[in-house]
């Protein structure tokens, strides 16, 4: 079984457990496993950009250095961890930032030798496993289900550094949706911000941004929205005061399609329970 060094981050063992659990279980069905990297530290949850803010990037860089001792690939699942770790690595590897590199690596004082790629779980599905192999393992095709793949900000921007997908019209989750037998819906707000961390002190603003995403997905005929970011899931699912569209992690529906028991997939953690909708579609 292929094994990947895995960076879970702070939210995936607590408020987004179901993302971590469903992702691991689904990957096991596909013949691979995630092995938590030892001694990881918080990535910082957002990338600090001020040119001289070396300290603000040390945590993320420390993870890169430690991961480089384990292998050539580090898998992330949380969109924020993916964004921050990948940007921190690009920063430290850029010859234009030689001063920062030297000072930060001296401070961390652990060997950074090997090239290590920061990838997202979706990269593993797309590149290493492949859609045909995913399709071959589908035990319960999600026929009749229309899904809006919501990428938000952190998976796709800044595009030059992340190089993950088209920053205006990304496709990877839509490809997965198709492989699972469901129907991807086109909608306008695939990469529109949910309001992100503004939920902490400007809930009004975050609520408005999130509501726009849900309403747009609804208008295009989606039965549910899928995401890979705990904060997008929270803002869309919990801040709403109107629309009832379910908001799930893509891994939960991946698990369902691969034949895992619905009870194992953490559906009860959603504020708007997706199970009645799934039952109506004959999928539970």
């Amino acid at each position, binding site marked *: 079984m292929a094994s990947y060094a895995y960076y879970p981050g702070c939210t995936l063992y607590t*408020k987004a457990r179901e993302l971590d659990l469903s992702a691991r279980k689904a990957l096991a069905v596909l013949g691979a496993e995630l092995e938590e990297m030892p001694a990881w530290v918080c990535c910082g949850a*957002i990338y600090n950009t001020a040119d001289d803010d070396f300290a603000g990037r040390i945590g993320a860089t420390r993870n890169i250095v430690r991961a480089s001792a384990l292998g050539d690939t580090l898998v992330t699942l949380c969109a924020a961890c993916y964004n921050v770790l990948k940007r921190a690595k690009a920063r430290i590897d850029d010859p234009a930032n030689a001063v920062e590199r030297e000072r930060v690596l001296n401070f961390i004082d652990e060997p950074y030798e090997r090239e290590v790629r920061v990838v997202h779980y979706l990269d593993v599905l797309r590149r290493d496993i492949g859609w045909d192999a995913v399709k071959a393992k589908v035990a319960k095709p999600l026929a009749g289900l229309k899904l809006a793949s919501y990428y938000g900000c952190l998976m796709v921007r800044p595009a030059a550094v992340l190089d993950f997908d088209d920053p205006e019209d990304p496709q990877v989750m839509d490809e997965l949706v198709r492989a699972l037998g469901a129907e991807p819906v086109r909608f306008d707000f695939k990469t529109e911000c949910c309001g992100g961390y503004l939920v*902490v002190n400007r809930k009004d603003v975050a609520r408005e941004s999130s509501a726009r995403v849900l309403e747009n997905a609804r208008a295009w005929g989606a039965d549910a929205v899928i995401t890979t970011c705990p904060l997008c899931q929270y803002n869309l699912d919990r801040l709403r005061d109107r629309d009832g569209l379910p908001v799930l992690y893509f891994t939960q529906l991946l698990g369902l399609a691969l034949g895992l028991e619905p009870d194992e997939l953490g559906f009860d953690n959603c504020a708007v329970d997706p199970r009645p909708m799934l039952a109506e579609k004959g999928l539970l």
Partner: protein
Amino acid sequence: MSKPPSVSPLVRSIEALSGQVIADCYQCGCCTAGCPIGEAMDPPPSKAIRLLQLGRAGELLDSEGIWLCASCMVCGTRCPRGVDYALIAEACRAVVLRRPVRSGRVGPETVTDEDCEEIPQQAFMASFRKFSG
């Protein structure tokens, strides 16, 4: 091509912290049009940059707009001139937050117990890193 130096030292330090060239902006408004917070943000991205072009950095640093950026990176993605306002807003906040007076917008004391229970910690980390000194 070399750029004329910015007039105000404050604008020069914002340019240094952000790595952006304020004079590159030609005020097309794409950033503001795409900003998901643009309606609530005062000044919105293009207007904020205009203030810097006019040497009125103080007005921007005193504004609420720089504290409403969600770092969604749409403005920089869509700018036809390669200007990234998210980095400029962060530089402005850095200038304010590094002053000796306390000026952060968030902290443990601004969070209710209920929000602490509910909101993913990812949001607290991000918010505190962007909005507290």
